[in-house]
């Protein structure tokens, strides 16, 4: 697992209060991990803070699973 992936998972575990085992690449924040719309916004902000990157709203809307978050960040984090 890449460094980015493990940091993403750690944030999700912390913020959504889920078990690490549930945080699979396919897991959807809202459908599988119990997030509501505000949780999702908070997650995106935490990713921005952790990786010092700005995720524009139109991009944020395309990130709804763990895998999508990891892929986006691996591409955009310098």
């Amino acid at each position: 697992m890449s460094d980015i992936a493990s940091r993403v998972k750690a944030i999700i575990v912390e913020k959504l209060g889920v078990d690490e085992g549930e945080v699979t690449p396919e897991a959807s924040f809202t459908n599988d991990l119990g997030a509501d719309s505000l949780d999702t916004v908070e997650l995106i902000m935490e990713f921005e803070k952790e990786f010092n990157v700005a995720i524009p709203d139109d991009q944020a809307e395309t990130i709804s699973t763990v895998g999508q978050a990891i892929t986006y960040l691996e591409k955009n984090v310098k």
Partner: protein
Amino acid sequence: MELKRVVVTGLGALTPIGKTVPEYWEGLMNGVSGAAPITRFDTEKFKTKFACEVKNFVAEDYLEKKEARKIDPFVQYALVSTEEAVKDAGLDFETLNTNRIGVIWGSGIGGLKTFLDEIMIFAKGDGTPRLNPFFIPKMIIDIAPGHISMKYGLRGPNFSCVSACASSTNALIDAFTYIRLGKADIIVSGGSEAILNEAGIGGFNAMHALSTRNDDPQTASRPFDKDRDGFVAGEGAGTIILESLEHAKARGAKIYAEIVGGGMSADANHITAPHPEGLGARLVMQSALDDAGLTTADIDYINVHGTSTPLGDISETKAIGTLFGDDAYRLNISSTKSMTGHLLGAAGAVESIACILAIKNGIVPPTINHFTDDPALDSKLNFTFNKAQKRDIRAALSNTFGFGGHNASVIFKKFEE
């Protein structure tokens, strides 16, 4: 229309001297002070370095970590005291019409910690408003009754009352009124406050409202003592389950006492100073008596606002003297803030619980920390100094006065068929 009788069927308390109702009552009976050095932040640069904190409170002991993180301490406290009260009242919501069960809650300030934390992050940034999406829904005062309704599925009247230190008394009065009018069967009422942080202490210090007796915190809250020097900030929550008498009887609930009157008034005088002659305080007690259909001869105990400020204690005492006349001398008067500190928006709730239990148990909790008589106060009044006093209490009145000149008083009576 005929007004319904309303009774108290459940109690919950999370206070600086006890984290449950039995612990709280034991603290009151033993004259325990909840004051101690502040542990929540570094007080080095603060004029006041102590307060009445809820000791060793760990939210995760009561709430799931994920839930606890999304709510401000004032809501955490509300959920904790309410859980105790719901259990105490034996409420099984599966069997009740939850459309007729409401929540009316008081808090003076709401999520001050959340506000402070978020604004600190903003202030340290570059001006980009990177505010947490939970900022507003964590902070707003009405979110406390909102969370209580969501936890238990209560779909009746639901809102908050805000009148500074009178907030939870206003909440109780509203709850009483709505049940009386038949608009709900049960209302979960009370209040919570959690302002023991840099903004709360710094703000009240700036007003010179707090005691600065840093060398002896436990004796700092000394209402009616000559050397009182301000109030001691406290925190916590109190929940009172109010229910129509017919509903309580139908489900075989235990009844602590009856709530019989609520009074409200304004000083219309000054933002923080009480009316010097206690005009608003006199009016609010008269208003509560009128609402209850009682006279001063019917009251045996007044749990006073009595915050231990130089001016406030005098004006409230004058108001009692003027209104009660000779009846003032047969009253027991006490300020339980001498033990709990001032719970601000939660004061009315926890002090009403003190009144309810005083009636039930036939004992008046004391005003501790009395050392020197204040010549400005009528020495013939019985302030229940330093030790609890046994007394059969037919009816007790609880006073609360808030910055802004808001006054609210409520009267509880021994329950009789």
